């Protein structure tokens, strides 16, 4: 497994796609923060971002955790770029036929899949760390109302979002590996990023709430006690996560991410044993 991990890291180091990905994302950040710098000179606009990031209309300061929400969750560029990268990474050795060179040699396919997944996650981690660093740096330099305290909350949010991203990219990895289809993986990633699945999940929530006897208003507001499917859907959990959530909700968020990620990885390994290598 370690050799496969090293092989993929070597491949990435020669492919330069990670560097291109980082440059594209940092360019997106430049544009985002450049615009923000122009807009946030007005306190009213700053309050708008504060509300957007945390739902809190009382504060006029921008905390690191709000920055986190604004830069990572609300910005589609990170998840779209990571999805594209994951799909290209997971599919590359199949489209190029290189998988034939490695799949024929190993007794078991488990180290082949696990090594590849581990190297993908290493790349994603590196991108996430660099992206977060630049986000914070831009905020500190460009946004006048940036409050450089409450780091504990920031780090907690940063870790939870990291787990959620890893889980989602594992799902993309599984879909791409299983169906050998770059389109499938990209569609899933983009649908998650644009919140398309959420509409369907919310609709199911409303139907469940109505079936449980709740009023239409409560069902739409999601106020009642009925089971809500969207609470256990990875995309919704990712979009609705906030560092200011209570411990119970944070634990649920992490558990949902771990279950989805673990299941996707298990299926990727298990199904690879049953699949022929098509190159």
């Amino acid at each position, binding site marked *: 497994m370690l050799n496969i991990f090293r092989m993929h890291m070597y491949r990435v180091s020669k492919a330069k796609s990670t560097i291109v990905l980082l440059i594209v994302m940092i360019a997106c950040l430049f544009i985002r923060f450049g615009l923000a710098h122009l807009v946030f000179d007005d306190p009213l606009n700053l309050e708008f971002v504060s509300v957007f990031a945390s739902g809190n209309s009382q504060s006029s300061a921008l905390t690191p955790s709000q920055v986190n929400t604004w830069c990572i969750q609300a910005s589609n560029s990170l998840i779209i770029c990571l999805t594209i990268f994951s799909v290209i990474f997971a599919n590359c050795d199949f489209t190029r036929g290189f998988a034939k060179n490695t799949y*024929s040699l190993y*007794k078991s396919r488990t180290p082949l899949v696990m090594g590849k997944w581990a190297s993908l996650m290493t790349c994603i981690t590196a991108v996430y760390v660099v992206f977060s660093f630049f986000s914070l740096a831009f905020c500190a330099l460009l946004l006048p109302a940036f409050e450089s305290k409450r780091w504990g909350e920031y780090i907690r949010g940063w870790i939870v979002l990291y787990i959620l991203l890893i889980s989602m990219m594992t799902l993309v990895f599984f879909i791409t590996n299983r169906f050998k289809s770059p389109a499938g993986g990209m569609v899933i990633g983009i649908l998650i990023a644009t919140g398309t699945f959420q509409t369907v999940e919310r609709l199911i929530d409303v139907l469940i709430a109505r079936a449980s006897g709740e009023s239409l208003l409560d069902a739409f507001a999601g106020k009642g006690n009925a089971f809500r499917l969207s609470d256990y859907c990875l995309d919704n959990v990712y979009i609705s996560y906030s560092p200011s959530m209570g411990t119970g909700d944070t634990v649920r968020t992490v558990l949902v991410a771990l279950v989805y990620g673990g299941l996707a990885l298990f299926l990727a390994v298990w199904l690879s044993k049953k699949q022929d290598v098509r190159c």
Partner: protein
Amino acid sequence: MDYILTTNELTKTYGKYNAANEVSIHVERGGIYGLIGRNGAGKTTLMKMIGGLSRPTRGSFEIHGRNGETTKQMMPKVGILIEAPGLYPNMTAMQNLTTKAIALGINDKKYLKGLLEEVGLSNTGKKKAKQFSLGMKQRLGIAMALVNKPELLILDEPINGLDPQGIAEMRSILHHLCYDKGITILISSHILDELAKVATQYGIIHEGRLLEEETKEELFSKCCERLELKTNDISRTLEVLNMMGFSKMEVKDDSINIYERLNEGGAITIALAKENIQTNEIAVKTDALEDYYFQLTGGNKNV
């Protein structure tokens, strides 16, 4: 008989279609086994199963006498080049080799350079694989298959699409690997003439079934090889050949077919040149092998 590879009724089914149907081949150690069959006959399917890329629907195979689950332990001793070589186009030849070497835990640049020299790619430098000719890609594919120091090399149509020079180079590489390095080769092709020049054992596969399995001697006793010679003066050429002691020959259309001492093509050319006779074409032909193949498969000449 010392077999490096035997398959036991190996079968691969896609839906109701049998791509390989109870194929049992026996590959002798140290030789070149030629798998003959037209496109879609089941050659690649069989090789993919042996190479560990595809799971057999039924049947089994033995490598070095190991079968069942223990066959997997022998897979690192098998090198494969199936269909197009699996290369990263933006990497150089050395980088492609290094990538596979890392996967195998091999960290020996000198060894990898030696492999490139062996296949004639040592001077490609920083040229990327996407800029290689088809012949160069095939040779790099063979080098990739050799990284793990295999005892059995599986090559699926390695001469497909190559120009005559590329085919000759490939032939010389195969001879070197088999006779100098002792690697057993299982090679498939639908170009009978070329396979006839390298293989020592043959398996004829048609519509997923193995029709015949024979040694070179057995096969050529059923259908003979000949040296086909075309010159600008047939009558004087016959005189020269008579002087050289050739007796088993016949004139057919504008060429002379010689049925003995087939490896003396070079000597014939030199002798003719001394008599100022121009050699237009000289080649070992095995049309009779084709005829035999068509007779077996019941097909027409569209292989």
